[in-house]
C-alpha cells in the first residue's frame, strides 16, 4: 500500500511540475517577414529554418538582443528579438480578406492580392486609378511617376545586404 502511495505521489509530482513548467514557458510569435532561426546568436550563423509570420515559439533563454527558442516541431535555435512579439500577429496582417474585391467587381479588374506583385509590371495602374485619372485630367507625368514607383521593387536579399552594410539590427557589431 505504502509503495502504491509512493508511486502515485511520484506520478502526481511529475505531472504537477511538468504542467507548471509548461505554464511558465513564455510563448512568442514570429511577427515580421523574413524571420530566420539561427544556429547561434549571430546573423552569420547557419540558418536552421525560415519561419513564416505567426509561427509560435517557446522562449528558452535570452542573451542581449537574441532569444533562444524552440518551435512546435522541436527545432531549437536563436532568433533576433525584433522578429518576434509576445502576441500573435493579427489575422489582417496578411493581405486580402474573405469579403471579395469591392472594386474588382466594379470594374472587372479581378486581380487577386497574391497576384498583385507579379501582374503589376504587366498591367500598369489599376483600372480604377486609370478611370479616375482619365476623368480628372491627371497629368500624364503623374501617371508615369506612379507607374515607375510601382515597378521598382526591393527584394529581401537587397534589404538584408543593406542592413548588413549599415550594421543594423541582427547585423549590429
Amino acid at each position: 500500500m505504502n509503495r502504491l502511495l509512493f508511486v502515485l505521489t511520484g506520478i502526481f509530482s511529475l505531472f504537477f511540475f511538468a504542467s507548471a513548467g509548461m505554464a511558465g514557458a513564455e510563448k512568442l510569435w514570429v511577427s515580421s517577414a523574413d524571420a530566420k532561426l539561427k544556429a547561434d546568436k549571430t546573423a552569420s550563423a547557419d540558418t536552421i529554418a525560415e519561419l513564416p509570420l505567426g509561427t509560435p515559439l517557446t522562449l528558452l533563454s535570452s542573451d542581449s538582443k537574441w532569444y533562444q527558442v524552440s518551435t512546435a516541431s522541436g527545432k531549437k535555435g536563436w532568433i533576433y528579438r525584433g522578429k518576434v512579439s509576445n502576441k500573435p500577429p493579427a489575422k489582417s496582417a496578411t493581405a486580402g480578406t474573405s469579403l471579395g474585391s469591392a472594386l474588382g467587381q466594379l470594374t472587372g479588374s479581378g486581380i487577386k492580392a497574391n497576384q498583385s506583385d507579379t501582374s503589376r509590371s504587366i498591367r500598369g495602374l489599376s483600372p480604377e486609378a486609370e478611370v479616375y485619372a482619365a476623368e480628372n485630367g491627371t497629368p500624364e507625368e503623374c501617371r508615369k511617376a506612379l507607374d515607375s514607383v510601382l515597378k521598382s521593387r526591393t527584394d529581401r536579399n537587397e534589404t538584408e545586404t543593406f542592413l548588413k552594410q549599415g550594421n543594423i539590427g541582427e547585423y549590429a557589431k
Partner: protein
Amino acid sequence: MKSEKEADNIPGFSKERRDFLRLAGAAGLLMITPGCLAEAVKMADPQGQSKDLQKAVKILEGAGAMAASAGELDYQSEFAIGETLALEGFRRYGLPVKDSGVQKYVSLVGNAVARNSARPNIPFYFVVVNSPIYNAFSCPGGIIFVSSALVRAMEDESQLAGVLAHEAAHVGHRHALQSVKRAKFFEGVAKIGDAAMKGEKGKKFKEMIGTLQNVLFDRGLDQNMEYEADMSGMEIAYRTGYDPEGLIKVLEILNEKEATARKEGSWFSTHPPLSARIARCRERMKKYPDAGSLASVRERFAFYRNRF
C-alpha cells in the same frame, strides 16, 4: 433531417420560431461573416416568401457592408484607392526626385522597417518627391511619400527610418480607410455586381477619394491615429535595429523650423502639435533603455542626402 414541408408543420412551433430555426440551421453551416449569414438566410427562404427573413437579409447585408467599411476592405481594392490618392499626391506635392540612387536608398530604409510593421507581408513602395513642404504621407495599401524638404532636414538614417516607420504604421493600422469608413461608397460594397465606375457607384468612389484627399492632404488624420502611428513607428524602428529616438529628433528639428515653414499641406497642419508629440514620444523612450546602442547610420545617410 426533415424535408422543408415537414419542417413547416412541426407541431408546437409558431411560424416565427420555424423561421428562426431555419435561420439558425443555415447559419450554423455558413457562420463566417454577416455577408455569409445573409446568404444563409436566403438559403432558408429561397423564394423570399417570409417578410421577417427578408428583413434579416437586409440587416445582415448591411452588417456585411459595415464590416467591409471598417477597414477590412480587400487588399486589391485598398491598393487601387491608394493608387488613386498617389496620383493626386504627385499632382499636389511634386514629381519624384530624379535620382534612382536616392530613390533606391529610401526604398531600402522603408522596406527594412516595413517588414516589421503590422502588415509585413504586403509590398510597400516609397518615393521622395521634389517639394519644399515638410511632409510625409501614406496611401492605403502601402504607397508612401516623403518630401525632399523633409529628407534634407534630417541628419541620419534613424530619423528617416522613424518617419517611414510612422507612415508604415498608418498603413498597418489602415488609418486612412478607417477615416472614411462611413463613406456612402462602402455601403453594400460586399455585394456589388456589374455596376460601372461611371454610374452612381463611380460617383460615390470619387466622393470617397475626395474625402480621403482632404484627410491626407489638408485636415489630417484623427489625432489619436497620429499618436498611435508615432508609438508604433518607434516600436517598428526599434525592432528593426534603429534608434527609435530618430523620430523624436525629426519632430524636434521641425519644431525649430515651424515658425518660418509653410504650413499648408505639411506635417505642421495635418498632425497634432509637435510639442505634444515630442512629449509622448519622450515618455515612450523609457521602454527602450538600450536605444542608445542601436543604429543611427549618419555617413550613409549624408552621402545620399548631399546628392539632392
